[in-house]
């Protein structure tokens, strides 16, 4: 088993002693899917954003893809990790002034210095994988939310990452658009991509994940396999959270 992310006792506090992360430890192995759940403000977004250096932390140890990240990291060092880690955001964050294909080829051409033609070919391949190759010349504002999120996934894949981070990828979508994005993520998992997914989608977590991590107020409350977590959660707070999700 080849560990991709190893975190030990990660701690980050905002002012007034409010802790965003409180002694968080976890390990994600290659080819595995970790789903992070928890109520809003529990620190799950902060957690996965530390994995590609969008957030710093105060104490603890973090190793991503064999590279150690120090608490107050250097921007240059983090770039090595970012080239190998893809991220998908809740609000898609596509670049509005670039066409769909340009959104995807930007990083391969300028970060990995691949040729324009090669990057475009691979970009078109990714778009066809996502089922949106017909939109390649359009601009983000001309696409629906679900389509934009699939473009964002293709953009993250364009750098051929070894780890994909998803920060609530379906929360900003219309309910009827959620499945098209989840299906794309399922296919990625089947292909053996290592993924860390922050989501509230129970169905996705049950089917796809290898491990579920439940967080509340910065602490890891429970780490279990999805079978145990969804049928027989060990912690009172997990059960309460799942009950509330069911009611919605």
């Amino acid at each position, binding site marked *: 088993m080849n560990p991709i992310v190893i975190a030990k006792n990660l701690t980050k506090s905002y002012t007034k002693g409010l802790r965003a992360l409180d002694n968080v430890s976890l390990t994600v192995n290659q080819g595995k899917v970790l789903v992070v759940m928890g109520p809003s403000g529990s620190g799950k977004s902060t957690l996965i954003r530390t994995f*590609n250096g969008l957030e710093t932390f105060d104490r603890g140890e973090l190793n991503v893809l064999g590279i150690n990240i120090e608490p107050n990291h250097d921007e240059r060092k983090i770039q090595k990790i970012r080239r190998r880690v893809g991220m998908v955001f809740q609000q898609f*964050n596509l670049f509005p002034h670039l*066409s769909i294909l340009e959104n995807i080829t930007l990083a391969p051409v300028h*970060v990995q210095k691949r040729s324009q033609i090669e990057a475009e070919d691979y970009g078109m391949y990714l778009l066809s994988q996502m089922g949106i190759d017909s939109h390649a010349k359009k*601009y983000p504002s001309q696409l629906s939310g679900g389509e934009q999120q699939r473009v964002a996934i293709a953009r993250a894949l364009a750098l051929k990452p070894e780890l994909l981070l998803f920060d609530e990828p379906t929360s900003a979508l219309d309910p009827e658009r959620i499945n098209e994005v989840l299906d794309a993520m399922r296919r990625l998992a089947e292909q053996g991509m290592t993924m860390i997914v922050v989501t509230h989608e129970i169905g996705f977590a049950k089917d796809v994940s290898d491990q579920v991590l439940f967080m509340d107020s910065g602490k890891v409350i429970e780490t279990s396999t999805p079978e145990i977590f969804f049928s027989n959660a060990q912690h009172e707070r997990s059960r309460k959270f799942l009950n509330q999700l069911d009611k919605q």
Partner: protein
Amino acid sequence: MFNITLIILFFQNTRKTLFSNFLNTIISLIFIIVINLICFKAFGWLIHNANWKVITSNLPLYAFGSFPPAEQWRPATWIFSLLSLSIITLFGPEWKWLRKNLLIAWAGTIPLGLYLLYGGIGISPIMSRHFGGLTLSILLTTCSSLFSLPLGIILALCRQSSLPLIRKLSSIYIDVMRAVPLISVLFFGQLLIPLFMPVGIEIDRVWRAIFAFTLFVSAYIAEDIRGGLQSIPSTQIEAASSLGLNKYQIIQFILIPQALRIALPALTNQSIGLFQNTSLMAILGLVELLGVGRSILANPEFIGQYIEVYIWLACVYWFVCTIMAVLARHLEQRMKINQANF
């Protein structure tokens, strides 16, 4: 039938908007009478009293200033190419290759203009003191806009820099330039630029003016672009940096293109303002459009014909400004297609 309903609709509409109540009716009536009186007087003057010879016999002067008559085809070609490019941009067909090359054509007009005016290879060289009229106004506008845009972008970026010294220096520059009147910058540009140059190097009046305009306008452009930069959501930077782009790549590929798009309306206003402000050079020794008007009015043959000259100049300025505004709106519309809902 159709006409009658239209007329009835018209009357209903006027009653609603012009004569809705007593006060409104009185105001409307007074204004209708006053406008009629003014129009009557003005038309009477235009037909009977106005002497348009001061315009018609001096048309080449208004257009080219004292450019040698034998060479006036050169600025004429330039103005004509600008005009036809505007028409093609606005009304031309939607062919892809044409639209792609239009931008290059627009960028090419400035070197073309400089070549045609200054001369050089193949055509006889002409001193810049012979430049004048509308040609000079357009030359000042285009060159100063071209130079002040990159300078403004750099200043805006410096003002956002994480290095306190750079931030301080550029904000002092921007604030001072925005605090002083344009005419003083132009005047001292004419006076002081030679003083700051090493002995023996001379810059002609036209380039001193372009330099001063650039220094002044870039401070305003910097503020417009800073506004654009500030309205880009920070999530765009997060997305770009999580793709592994470094700071300079983010500035080049993400921040500047988006800031320019957002600031576009403000930037076009700046260049329209710049065109109007080139008229200030009339009192600082350059014979641009307004300067030509002044020199014609000083000619004993046309003395006292202020109204005709000023109305004519106002029409020319208004016309050019309107073309610029229409072109700008056209550009904004085209940009809007690929502008996302942030």
